[in-house]
Structures are given as C-alpha cells and as structure tokens.
C-alpha cells in the first residue's frame, strides 16, 4: 500500500515538473504579449520607412509628406504647428524643433532624408503626424541589443533545459540504484 502511494506520488511529481516548465513558459509569453499589447493599445503603431514625397504650399512651408514602409505601403501625413521633429543630418547633428517654430527647416530636413534614403519613424493619429524622428532602431549599433537578446534567450532556454534533464537523470539513476540495492 505504502509502495503504491510512493509510486503514485513519484509519477505525479514527474508530471508536475513538466507541467511547471510548460506553465512557466506560458506565463512568460502571456506577460510579454500583454505588455506589448498594452503599450500600443492607446495609439496607432508608429510607421517607419523612407520619405518618398514632400509637399509644400506657395510660401514653401511643409503641408504634407509621404513615407514608404518596409512592405512598400505609402502613407501620407499632414502636419500641424505642434508636430515635433528630431532629425539628423548626414554628419549626425540632430535638429530638434516643432513645425510652428521652424516651418521652413522641416521641409529642408525631410527633403534631405528623402535624398539620402534615411529612414524615419512617424507617430500619428488620423494621418496627422505628431512626431517625426530619426529611425533610431534602424541603426546597426542600436540593433545589436536585439541580436544579443535573441542569442541570450535561445541559449539560456537550451541550457536551462539541458540542466533540467541532467538533474532529472541523476535523480532517476539514484532511485534506480537504491531500488536495485533493495532487491539485492
């Protein structure tokens, strides 16, 4: 009877170990997804791409501009006095201002980006641009962080799994040796 109880407990323990691993993975993924969804729940996701069109009025002030994203979809944005800019020139000098403060400079900067095929990121709502910034994450140096994250996650999970298997194997070998000793 006691041996039967131990047997049942050991079996449920084995199952629970696998289940715990599966549950830990599922919780980690769910949390990541929830965080990601919450971050973008209140805004339209920003668009990144290259400038393909710049339109000005008779006075030479910017009225609209168009961006083509990585899928080739072209989106046209209107601007307003509060549209913020954070754009760099080829030398890397950053210009930070708003449309209302320097209306002519924004045209020059966007045309410069169009000629250089330099990518930008636009946050917007109803096709009105709120911020137009350099696509920071498009830079090679900045991307290394993401590459490192994938590399670390991949090997951390594999190592954790191999360690888990190693531990399990040792426990099993120990138990088998103990029982074999009992049977003599």
């Amino acid at each position, binding site marked *: 009877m006691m041996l039967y109880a131990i047997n049942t407990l050991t079996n449920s323990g*084995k199952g629970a170990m696998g*289940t715990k*691993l599966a549950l830990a993975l599922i919780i980690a993924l769910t949390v990541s997804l929830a965080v990601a*969804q919450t971050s973008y729940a209140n805004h339209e996701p920003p668009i990144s791409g290259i400038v393909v069109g710049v339109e000005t009025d008779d006075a030479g002030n910017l009225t609209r501009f168009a961006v083509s994203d990585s899928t080739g979809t072209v989106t046209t944005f209107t601007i307003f006095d509060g549209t913020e800019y954070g754009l760099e020139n080829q030398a890397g000098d950053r210009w930070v201002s708003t449309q209302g403060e320097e209306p002519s400079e924004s045209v020059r900067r966007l045309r410069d980006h169009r000629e250089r095929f330099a990518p930008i990121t636009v946050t917007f709502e109803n096709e009105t641009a709120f911020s137009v910034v350099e696509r920071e994450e*498009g830079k090679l140096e900045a991307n290394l962080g*993401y590459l490192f994250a*994938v590399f670390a996650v991949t090997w951390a999970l594999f190592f954790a799994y191999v360690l888990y298997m190693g531990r399990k194997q040792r426990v099993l070998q120990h138990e*088998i040796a103990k029982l074999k000793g009992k049977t003599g």
Partner: protein
Amino acid sequence: MLKKVLDLLDPLLILSAALMGVALYLIFIWVPTETNQGAVQRILYFHVPVAWGSMLGILVVSGSSFMYLWKKNEKWDRLAVASAEVGVIFGAIMLLSGMIWARPVWAVWWTGEAKLTTALILFFIYVAYLMFRGYFPPGAQRQRLAAIIGVIGAVDTPIIYFAANLWSQAHPPLITGPAADAESTLGSDLGIVLMASTLAFTFLFIFLVQTRYKIRKSEDDLVELKRILSTSAMTGVN
C-alpha cells in the same frame, strides 16, 4: 576525470556542437550585414531554424502517436513525449525571437496576423499535450488519449507553413520548401548560412530528443521496478 567527460559526450552532441560552431562563425563573421535591416536581420538565422525545429517536433509527435495507436508499443509513446517537450522549447524560442525581431523592424512586438497566430497555436498545442499528460492519471488510457491529441496537433503545421502565402501580410514570404518564391534568396550567402544553421539546430533537436527519450525510458524502468517490488512485498505479506 577525462574518462568521465568522454563518457558524457555523445557523437550526436559532438556533431551538433561542431555544426553550431560553423553556423555561429557564418552568422557573425562570414555573412555580410543585410543593407535594409542591419544587424537585426541576423536574428533570422536563429528564428527560422528553431521554427523549423518546432514544426519538426509536432510532426514527430504526430507520427509517433500514430505509430503508438497502431502498434501499441511503449517506445512510440516515449518518442512522442520526448519530442513534445523539446518542441515546446523550440516553440518558445521561435515566438520570443520573432517578437524581438519584430520590434525594431515592424515597430511592434506582436501583431494578430495569420503566421504569428498559427505559430502561437502550435505552442499552445504542445503545452496542452504536456499538461494533459501531466494531469491525467498514468496508464494506457492516458497514452491513448495523448496520442490522439498528438495526431490532431499536426494539422496546424501546413497552416503555419502556407500562412504567409495564403494571407499576404507583414510576415516575410516563404524562402524554402515547395511553396517558396521562385526568386528566393536561398542560393545566396543568406541561403548558405540559413541552411548551415538549420542543419545545426536539427542535430541539436535530435540530440535533445534522444536524451529526453533515454530519461523517459529510465522513468518507465523505475515505475516497473517499483511495481515488481510492490508485488513481491505483497506476496511476502501473503
């Protein structure tokens, strides 16, 4: 000491480690940086092979579950469990690496498009299979029902594979297999690195499944040993 280390080494482990070394050299040193995406594109060399591994896993689960239902041989059930457990690890890495890649390229961690959703379903199939086995009382009925779940689970595989072509959305199109684009870049540098990396991860997958299979066999032996002891104890009492 050296003998102990050598005993631990398995030919499959040595092969997968050597291939992984070659793949890492190709990924980080040999292949040039992709012009549009930059360094982040190198994530592809991890993401695609682990995605392949997770799909291979469910195919093995399904195939061995079918064989178990047919032959009623324990070894097929063991293979299915081992493959499901390794598959869930590959599935988790596939989803996480995809999310990390999407953040700088798509500016979001996740979208509800078909390829991503079907891949997430595959992960949940693995989890459901393992949870079922964890909670259902041990015995022939558990193995039979788990095998049925395993066989049904493979239905998701062709849907994942064809999803990018069936519903043209943001996910890059297929570059390998029967439905791949004719102008695929597989013959280029990218293709060579991708193939090497896929080969390395496939051998890693086989090694992990083999190791987990052996552990499962030890678990079954332990249960059998306990059963024998229990029977002999009962006989002794009687």
